[in-house]
């Protein structure tokens, strides 16, 4: 056997040993249990995305006249509290960008008074009076 063959076999053996070690390592160290199917972990951003999704839907319902203002305000308040909680948790945990959190809180606060608009193109929630959607740039039609 020449030197190259010996080195090749040696490197191959090291690769095999390394592979075995990393595969076996999972059984040696402790690990959190697998997540349960019905409760997938959510990040702050995903939670906020869900809440904004619902707020947008709610606002559209209200704008289309399918929901009395009383119900709208009640549900909106509930979502606002949920969103504020997530944002607060995010800030407290030092994860969020304070400017972004503030922006969202203003959006929510303005929305309580019924002033949030919906982009006609991408449906993002947009502050009333904004000329262009900050998400997609579409022109915002004046609210009738």
């Amino acid at each position: 056997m020449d030197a190259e063959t010996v080195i090749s076999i040696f490197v191959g053996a090291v690769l095999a040993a390394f592979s075995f070690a990393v595969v076996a390592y999972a059984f040696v160290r402790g690990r959190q249990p697998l997540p349960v199917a019905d409760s997938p972990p959510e990040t702050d951003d995903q939670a906020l995305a869900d809440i904004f999704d619902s707020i947008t839907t709610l606002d559209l319902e209200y704008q289309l006249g399918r929901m009395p203002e009383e119900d709208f305000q009640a549900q909106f308040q509930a979502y606002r509290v949920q969103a504020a909680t997530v944002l607060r948790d995010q800030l407290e945990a030092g994860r969020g960008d304070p400017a972004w959190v503030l922006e969202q809180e203003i959006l929510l606060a303005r929305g309580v008074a019924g002033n949030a608009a919906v982009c006609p193109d991408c449906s993002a929630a947009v502050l009333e009076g904004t000329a262009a959607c900050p998400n997609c740039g579409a022109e915002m039609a004046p609210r009738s």
Partner: protein
Amino acid sequence: MAELGAISLWIALALAAYSTIGSVAGKLRLSPALVDSSQTAMYAVGLALLTATLSLVVAFISRDFEIAYVAAHSDLAMPSRFTWVAFYAGNEGSLLYIATILAIMSAIAVWRAPEKFKDALPYTTAVLMLTLTFFLAVMAVMANPFDKLPFVPLDGEGINPLLTHFGMFFHPPALMAGLIGITVPFAFAIGSLLAGKTGDEWVDAGRVWGMVSWVLLAGGLLLGSWWAYTILGWGGFWFWDPVENAAFMPWLGITAFIHSIMVQKRRGMFRMWNIVLINVAFGLALYGMFMNRGGSVPSVHSFGASQLGWVFLMFLAIGVVVPFAIFIWRYPLLKSVQNLDSMLSREAAFLVNNMLLLAIAFVTLWGTVYPLISRLTNDEEITVARPFYDQVNGPLMLGLIFLMGIGPLIPWRKAGMATLRRTLLPPAVAGLATVAVLAILGLHKEYALLAFGLASFVTGGILMEWYRGTRSRHRSSGENYATAFLRLIAANRPRYGGYIVHLSVVMVTLGIVGTSFFSTQRDVVLSPGESAVVEDYELVFLGTLATPKSNRTEFESTVQVFRDGDLLDTIRTKRAFYPSFNMASTNAAIRSTPIEDLYIVPSENLPDGSVGFRILVNPLIWWMWVAGPVMVLGTVIALWPQKIRAPAPVPSPRRFAAGHRPSAA
């Protein structure tokens, strides 16, 4: 190096098989350690395959002719830069390349999988690793790139001359990566079904990896066309060759998928349809790989007589039947959360777009397999040629371009007539004006007029969207127009990246229409000093210089190009003869401008010094090659990660009970 490569291959096979079984067993037995271990094994497969790849590269660089694959695909005269091409020039090396790419993509996909998908991830890992196990097993048993010869030859057989072209550095690897890349979104879809997560959890990963496969396939197809155009010497770029079709069909399938998945992402619709589409795309990708490796139709692209055909055919059958069985099993759970509100909506446009894409794929499939069917049924092989594809696919493609123009402009859910008028009128005017101007200028070919009109319609719509968005930002924030435009694109990358990709498709359309309807071809034999006239070019052949090289003789012919008596250019075109392959390769001389290409290729060098030339004037084909980088740019923009800010779902008329915690589905 042969030993290290072979050992690495077997380690990779063992790890992939372990990862497949361990992922499923760990998930079913709720054993987190086993699931973790299987996932780590998947990462280790990548390491083992990179080691095998490196071993083969070193073997090529050191010209280790003891390895049969190296001896078959290189020789001492081969420049080192072609090592990369030689690596995948044959069955064994290309399988190793495919396996390595799949291992790398799998590792990245699983590592970057969305948090909400983690529950189904073990099944996705299993699907990915099962596919990889197949490739590794085929390699280990039937096509091992590290098999040794019983003796060491003094020199190798050399690389196929047709592969010594710049385009070959990217065309085959991009196509192979694109074909195998479809496994990733497919694995997310099937993993989702197996885990009973029949909502939208897999959509983000499916979309991203679908687009990665899409751009690889599109880039590979364009580069292949460019390669054919510049080196094959017939002046065209697409022959409807069975193996070209085999790469084109999965591209159609994945194009339908990446559009349709957007509807699921935005509206929670088309859940069943998207599963069907990704299954179809995966099946077509497997068919493409089967055709490359011993498919029953001979082609310039296939790896010669290969014994692997039946193995890939079996894998194709399993890869089509099993996923559809899983789909049928989970069918009752696959309910969309929304229904189609109106046929005048973006989602309806996407649906029709899907139908057209699948229709083109079906027509192409039919044309590809028809020779086989006719041979089986009539004992007579009837080949379907270009006129069939042009006549059937041409109108379908025009319909597709029309939809590409209106789809992005009409709103989700339902479009009112006022909205349609506001958004569609300007591009429609642009399209009609283009048709009118061209007709006045004397262009009277209906299909070409229609295609140019549609191209103008699509471009007009995109430019209008850009202008409106930029103007809005400029007015609302005071940004200058350039900043406003860039920030507009950055604010919604998937959308504006998609527009850029659409523009590149328009460019491809221009090239296809220009060459299909307005190309001029002339075949002439010229002696030194003689000239020929094609369109408004006069070509003067000066002479040929023959240069013997180590493995070939090169004939370089020099031609002067005049127009209106003025010398425009002096161009040189090459033809090389490789005695060991008994094969000639050509390098066309192309004078390329955005208006037209002057294309000259020597088809024959005669003993008396005269040369047979094929001369073509191909209008607008320049746009086709420029489309490639534009397409990649658009896809990169569309895929560039964007921090989740105010999300932009489409409102739906759902009601929530007060205080109910909404879900994304």
